[in-house]
C-alpha cells in the first residue's frame, strides 16, 4: 500500500519476541472491545457504561472479584490441561470429559468414606482433601490416558477420541448424580450429595487454597518445559515427531504421558470447582455449564502460545469477562448471552490478529530505508 511517497509492506517474521506477542494480544483485546461496542449500541446502551459495568464488577467489586478469581482458576487449570498436550503437538478437546471424570473421582473417594447423606461425618481434612484431589486427578488422567494411548499406539486422532469421551463423560456423570444415581443428593435434585463439613477446602484470603496449587502449577510447568529432560522430549515430539523418534524419544509414550498429565489437571479443575468453591461443595446441577466453560482453556492456551505463565493473565481476563458480562447483562437488562458474545468476539479478534505473529508491517521510506512501524514490529 502506498501513502504518498511512503509505502507500507507486509513482511514475514523471522521470530516473535514475547513482548511483541503480548502487545499483539493487548491490541486484539482492544479491537474486540471496540467491535463489541456495536452490540451495546444496538441494545441502546452506552458502550462506555457497558464496559464500565463489566470491568467494575469483574475486577473491582467486592462481590465480583472473588467470583472472577474462582472462575479464572478454573479456566487456568483447563488451560494447563490443554497446554501440556499442545506442547506435544496434540489437541486436547476433552477437558469437559476429563472434568466430569475428575468430579466423579473426587466425590467417589468421599462416597467410599460413606459421606453420602451425612454432612456431619468427620474425616480428617489432612487426609480427606488430598485423597479427593488424588481421586480427581486419577480419574481425569485415566480418561485422558485412553485418548493418549489410542493416539500413541494406533495413531487414532486424539481430537475425535477426546470429543467422544466428552460425550461418554457427560452421560456417565448424569447417570451418577441424577435421579436414582449412586451419588444423588438425597434432598436436592440432579446434583450430588454434599461434602461433609470437615473436608470443605480451607480458604486463603477468602479464596480456595487451589489458587496456590494453580500458581505453583504454572511455575512448575514453565520450569518443566524450559529446563527438564521430560519437557525437552515433549517439545521435541511436538515440533517434529520424526526427529524426536530419530533421537530416541519413544513416540508411543509421549502421547500417553501428555494426555494423562492433561487429564489429571482437568481433574484438578473439577476438584477446584465442585470440591473447593465456597457455596458449592457438590457436583452442582449446572455441571454441564462448567463443561462448556472448560473449552475456554483451548482459546486461552492458544493465545498464551502454550506458555503456562502467560496463561495466568489470559485466564484472568477470560474469567473476568464471563463473570462481568453475565452481571452487566442482568443489570443493564440486555438480552441473554452478553458474556458469550463478548468472548466470541474476542476469540475472533485474537485469532485474526495472530496473523501478526507471522507477519509484520514495515514502512518503506522513499530513500529505501526500512523502518518498522511501532508496535507491530
Amino acid at each position: 500500500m502506498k501513502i504518498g511517497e511512503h509505502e507500507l509492506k507486509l513482511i514475514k517474521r523471522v521470530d516473535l519476541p514475547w513482548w511483541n506477542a503480548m502487545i499483539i494480544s493487548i491490541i486484539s483485546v482492544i479491537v474486540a472491545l471496540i467491535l463489541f461496542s456495536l452490540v451495546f449500541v444496538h441494545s441502546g446502551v452506552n458502550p462506555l457504561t457497558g464496559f464500565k459495568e463489566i470491568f467494575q464488577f469483574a475486577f473491582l467489586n467486592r462481590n465480583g472479584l472473588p467470583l472472577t478469581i474462582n472462575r479464572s482458576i478454573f479456566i487456568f487449570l483447563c488451560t494447563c490441561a490443554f497446554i501440556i498436550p499442545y506442547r506435544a503437538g496434540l489437541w486436547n478437546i476433552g477437558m469437559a470429559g476429563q472434568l466430569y471424570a475428575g468430579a466423579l473421582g473426587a466425590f467417589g473417594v468421599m462416597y467410599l468414606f460413606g459421606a453420602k447423606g451425612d454432612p456431619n461425618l468427620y474425616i480428617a481434612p489432612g487426609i480427606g482433601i488430598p485423597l479427593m484431589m488424588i481421586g480427581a486427578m486419577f480419574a481425569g488422567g485415566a480418561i485422558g490416558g485412553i485418548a493418549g494411548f489410542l493416539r500413541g499406539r494406533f495413531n487414532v486422532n486424539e481430537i475425535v477420541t477426546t470429543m467422544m469421551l466428552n460425550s461418554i463423560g457427560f452421560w456417565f456423570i448424569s447417570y451418577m448424580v441424577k435421579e436414582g444415581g449412586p451419588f444423588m443428593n438425597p434432598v436436592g435434585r440432579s446434583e450430588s450429595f454434599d461434602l461433609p463439613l470437615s473436608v470443605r477446602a480451607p480458604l486463603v484470603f477468602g479464596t480456595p487454597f487451589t489458587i496456590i496449587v494453580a500458581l505453583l502449577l504454572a511455575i512448575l510447568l514453565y520450569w518443566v518445559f524450559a529446563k527438564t529432560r521430560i519437557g525437552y522430549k515433549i517439545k521435541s515430539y511436538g515440533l517434529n515427531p520424526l526427529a524426536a523418534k530419530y533421537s530416541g524419544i519413544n513416540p508411543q509414550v509421549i502421547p500417553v504421558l501428555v494426555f494423562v498429565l492433561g487429564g489429571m489437571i482437568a481433574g484438578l479443575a473439577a476438584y477446584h470447582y465442585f470440591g473447593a468453591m465456597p457455596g458449592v461443595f457438590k457436583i452442582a446441577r449446572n455441571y454441564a455449564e462448567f463443561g462448556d466453560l472448560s473449552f475456554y482453556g483451548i482459546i486461552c492456551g492458544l493465545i498464551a502460545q502454550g506458555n503456562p505463565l502467560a496463561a495466568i493473565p489470559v485466564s484472568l481476563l477470560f474469567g473476568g469477562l464471563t463473570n462481568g458480562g453475565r452481571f452487566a447483562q442482568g443489570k443493564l437488562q440486555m438480552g441473554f448471552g452478553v458474556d458469550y458474545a463478548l468472548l466470541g468476539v474476542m476469540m475472533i479478534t485474537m485469532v485474526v490478529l495472530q496473523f501478526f505473529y507471522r507477519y509484520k508491517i514495515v514502512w518503506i521510506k522513499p530513500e529505501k530505508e526500512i523502518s518498522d512501524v511501532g508496535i507491530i514490529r
Partner: protein
Amino acid sequence: MPTENQTKEKTVLEARGITKRFPGCCANEQINFAIKQGEVHAILGENGAGKTTLMNILFGLYQPDEGELFFNGEKVDFKSPLDAIEKGIGMVHQKRKLVQAHSVIENIMLGHPNSGKILNFKRVKKEVSELCEQYGFKLDLDAKVWQLSEGQKQSVEIIKALYRGAKVLILDEPTSALSPPETRNLLDSIMSMVESGLAVVPFITHKLPIVLEISHHVTVLRNGRVTAKFATAGATEKSLAKSMVGREVIIKLDKVEVERGKPVLEVNNLSAYNEKDHLALSGVSFTIHEGEIFGIAGVSGNGQEELADVLAGLRKAASGTILLDGNDITHDSTLERWRKGVGYVPAERNEVGTICDYSLIENVAMNYYFEEEYVPRGIINYKSLRQLTESLIAEYNVATPGPDVKAKALSGGNLQKLILARVLSKKPRLIIVNLPTQGLDVGAIEFVQNKLLQAKKDKAAILLISGEIEEALSLSDWVAPIYEGKFMDIIPWTDAERDNVGAMMAGMKPKVESL
C-alpha cells in the same frame, strides 16, 4: 563457446542489478546476467551463496528490493509465480510438486489454463506424447505418479512446464536424485530442448562435470554476488570450483589406509518392509570392521533408506539379525542403540536430522538429552550444552551468528556439519551416514568427507549410503551396489570399476569373469 550464430540470437531473460536483502544479510547483491535462446546457462554456487533467492526472484516467489528483470527485452515485474509462468518461465523444483495419487497426464493438466474448461484427455494426451517424443522422454502417461522413479517424476515436471509453454526452463539441482542412466537421458533431453530454441537454466551446487558438459555459459555466485562468468569452453573443473569456494579444492581424495580391526557390525539376512508394506529390503548380509567404510551405492528408493532405518532402530526388522560388537541389537530401541554406540546421520536433514524451530543448542541436545553428564537428574544443564555447542561450531566451521540461532536459519551445508558434529562427537562405534553430501557445495563436501575419513582413522565402522558412484568408490573400502532391496555384489574397492558399479545400481547382474 558462443559462436557468431549464437550471439545474434535473442536474449530471453535478463537480470540487471538484482538485489534482495533479508534481515541481517544480503542474499543477492547486484546480480547481472542474461540468458539467450537455445542456450544452457548454469548458475553455480555453494549452499547459502544466494542461488535459491535468485531462483525465487526469477520465478516470482520473491520480489527484488532493487534491480529489474527483462523478458524478451520487455521489463517485467513478477508479483507471483503465476505471472512468471504466464510469461513463459518454467520451474522444476528439487522437491517434487506433484499429486502422488494422480496419473501423469492428470498432473500435467493440473493448473493448465485450459484444463478448467473442457477436459479433453485425448487431445492433451496426443500433444503431450508429441512433446515427450520430441525431447526424448519415455513416460507412461497413465501411470500414477507414486509408481514412478524420482527421475521419471522430474521428467513429468519438465513436460508439465513445457506443456504450459515455457520458454525458459529453470531446473533446481536437476541431477541430484537420478541414477547414472537417468542423468544421461536428462542431459540428452536438455540438448534437444536447446536445439529447439529453449533456454535452460540449471542451478547446481556441485557435479561440475555435468556443468562442463552441457552448459554454454556459467555464472558463479558466492556470498550473494556474481564472482565469475565463464564461457564453458574455457573453464575447467578446478577453475569452477575455485571461483565457487574462493580457494583451491581437492577434488580427488586420497585413500586412507587403516588397519582392519575387529568386526563392529554384523548383519545377517536382514529384511524390512516399507510404509506400503512391500518388502523393501530382502535378506542382506554384510560385516563392517573397525576402521572400514562400507559403501552402499544405489539410486534412492532401492531399500537403502530402510536398511539405515532398521540399523538405527527406527524401523522393525522383518527377519534377520544385527550384531553390534558381538551383541544382538536387533530388538533394541533407538535410544538403546544410541547408548550402545550407533550414530546415524539421516538423509533428511531438515525433516529428521534437526528440529528447525529449536536453537542449535537444543539441536545438539538431540543426541545428549539422555546423558547424565549434560542432564543430571533429569534437569538440563544448558550451560554445559552451550559450551559443547560452541566447541562443535568452532571445530566444524559451522557458519552461524551463534549457538542461539534457530536451525532453520542455517543453510543445508551448515546444518549437515552440525548434525555430523553432534553425532561424531559421541564417538560412535558404528556410523551410518545416508547421502551425507547430497545437495552440498564443493567446499562442504570436502569437509564432510574428511570428517568421515577422520572417524575411520579413529577406528569407527562406517556405513556410507551414497547415490554417487564417485563418492562411494573414493571413500569406501567395500562397495555394495543395491538394487530393489538386494546387494548386487560386494566388491573390494580395488576391484570396483565405475561403469560396472553403475550398471549394477541400475539392476544389471555382476559380470562373472571366470567360470
